[in-house]
């Protein structure tokens, strides 16, 4: 009931406010900081350390936008949001953008008055098994007992997938991810299923992380990306191309340490990205050095990935789908020219 009322209210107010909202870019420049909605805590994506410093792959998207618009990646106001609050906070103008492991779906894109500005992480539902089981593919899991967190879409995906492949399973549901993990650890099930990024985080929490492995298959599509309000195209473009610049920088082999050298002496494409030639910055309404600021302060996509969730982090997630398109993944940036 409350949800319906909220939805109705959302719709009403959105209708009114859509016309009034324009010029987030000017607002941000005037205010001198980007207000960015992040998760209240998700390992590797947005997390706060004991000193209160935010880090993560989602947080780095906020920092990239701040670097592009304001020239300083630290000029971000982080607004921790729960899953229920996130869209309202964006709609009501409490945050300028949302970078909070949000799956890009048609419903959200079309009916909430929002625009997805790209994908910064391709997630999907995967499986973790104990190595002693000797299983190497999901297709060997016929008849398995599966640990699962109740009330998530994970449950639905699992049922769909096993039915489509004519396999049987026994679901053992738990309330929280902690309980799910201890269920798996105590041997109540053979398999644990969740989004892959979560599986890696759960795996670290096991007493012997090396005893479990994450299977390579992914059975659902969860493209996660930053979101902005609909109807403010200038700001939408800035967020979209800030994310693209991260990915393009990796494709062009520009890293945070080589950026200043390559801006002068790199290939024409590198120089164009870094603002030495071309007028991409002024077309976006930004400084010519916008992409240079992103790469030199935040790094390229590979650096962001490895630092937060990849080999440089405790999570050790493989690039997988998130590798560049020419290296076996599907990360692809439209050309910046």
């Amino acid at each position, binding site marked *: 009931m409350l949800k319906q009322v909220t939805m109705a*209210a959302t719709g009403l107010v959105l209708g009114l406010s859509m016309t009034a909202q324009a010029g987030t870019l000017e607002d941000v420049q005037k205010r001198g900081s980007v207000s960015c909605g992040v998760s209240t805590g998700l390992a590797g994506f947005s997390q706060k350390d004991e000193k209160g410093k935010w880090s993560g792959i989602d947080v780095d998207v906020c920092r990239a936008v701040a670097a592009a618009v304001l020239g300083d990646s630290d000029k971000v106001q982080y607004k921790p949001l729960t899953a229920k609050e996130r869209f309202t906070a964006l709609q009501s103008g409490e945050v300028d953008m949302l970078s909070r492991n949000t799956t890009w779906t048609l419903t959200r894109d079309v009916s909430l008055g929002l625009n997805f500005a790209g994908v910064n992480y391709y997630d999907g539902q995967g499986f973790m098994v104990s190595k002693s089981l000797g299983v190497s593919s999901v297709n060997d899991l016929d008849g398995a007992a599966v640990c699962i967190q109740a009330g998530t879409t994970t449950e639905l995906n699992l049922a769909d997938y096993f039915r489509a492949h004519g396999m049987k399973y026994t679901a053992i549901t738990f309330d929280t991810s902690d309980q799910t993990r201890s269920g798996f650890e105590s041997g109540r099930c053979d398999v644990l299923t969740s989004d892959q990024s979560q599986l890696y985080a759960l795996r670290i929490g096991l007493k012997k992380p090396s005893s479990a492995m994450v299977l390579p298959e992914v059975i659902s599509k969860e493209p996660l990306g930053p979101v902005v309000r609909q109807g403010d195209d200038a700001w939408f473009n800035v967020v979209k191309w800030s994310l693209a610049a991260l990915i393009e920088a990796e494709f062009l082999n520009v890293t945070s340490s080589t950026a200043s050298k390559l801006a002068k002496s790199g290939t024409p494409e590198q120089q164009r990205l870094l603002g030495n030639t071309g007028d991409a910055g002024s077309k976006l309404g930004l400084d010519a050095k916008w992409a240079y600021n992103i790469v030199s302060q935040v790094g390229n996509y590979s650096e962001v990935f490895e630092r937060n969730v990849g080999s440089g982090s405790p999570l050790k997630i493989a690039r997988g789908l998130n590798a560049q398109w020419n290296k076996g993944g599907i990360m692809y940036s439209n050309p910046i020219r």
Partner: protein
Amino acid sequence: MSHPVVPSDTTTPTGGRIFHPKAAEPAPVTVVGKQAWLKNNLFSSPLNSAITLVLLALLGSFIPALADWLFISAHISGQTQDACTGDGACWVFIKVWIQPLMYGNYPDASLWRVNLSLILLGAVLSSPYWLPPKLRNKVDIMLLLAFPFMAIIILDGRLLGLEYVSTAYWGGFSLNLFLASASIILGMPLGFLWALGRRSNMPMARSICVVLIEFFRGVPVLALFFMGSVMLPLFFPEGTNVDKLLRVWIVLTLFMAGYMAEVYRGGFQAIPSGQYEASAAIGLSYWQTTLLVILPQVIKVSMPNILATSVMLFKNTTFLMIIGIFEILSTAQNALTNSNWLGGFSTEAYLFVAVIYWICCFSMSMVATRIERKLDTSHKS
């Protein structure tokens, strides 16, 4: 126990007897002393003896393992989760995260402001004990009502010319304390007004108060929080950005007022109508009657409920977790999802939060019992 040597009865020179009182015999061991206590409380019947033995055996098997986990094989030295290797509790986790758990991300250099506000809170709450009796009535209420605003001014810092610390950095257990005390302090007088309105003869005032009370009492606090954090912003005009913490504070205050109004109503019903008639007879006005005659008695009668409601509200502040405010519980959860602390320390974290809460709530009930005993002039025979 040694008994004083009592001289035996003697005879006076004139032949009369002098009687010396004898000291009382000690009570039999079956009635007082450790043995009697054991017999009466633990082994009074075969069934009770059996239950006692079973429980003792359970405790005996349970306590050593618990003590081992809690203290003996627990880890306390070190700064990272690698310091925790064995089976014991990992107090390193709590040690590293203690500052965010208590103070949120309030800047180190300004932590004294949080401490000052906490000291102020203690001083204001204990003021009835140290203020001279003459000043109590007037100064105390002023102090109480001023406290929330003083704390906000100190923590925010702009008005005092200190470094501005936005509410995004407030957090931890101090935030729970401030929010609970601020909403209890403001909710109590507001609730009293609502309760008066509900008893009023003016139809408009009465129906407004009934609607307010029933709404804030009838809707779960969780739904109220969601309304404060998710729905309210949609109704504000574009560009007004009312702070999330402020919205939550308002919601909590109204919630408290709704409950307190009903507590007071119970108190009102316990006041005999003779009190009203007597004060009317000596010519007191409505407000004089209410404030000078009725209110003190209402508060005395409702004391147990007032304190129970306050404890409940204090515990409700943990719900702030679900709307993304970093109070103590959500700070603990955030720490558990940090990729450097994924080793499964939830038991330690939740135990720590539980102990902190238990200490606070238990001391609140101790104070409550004391106040009740002090106020007790009751009709009990």
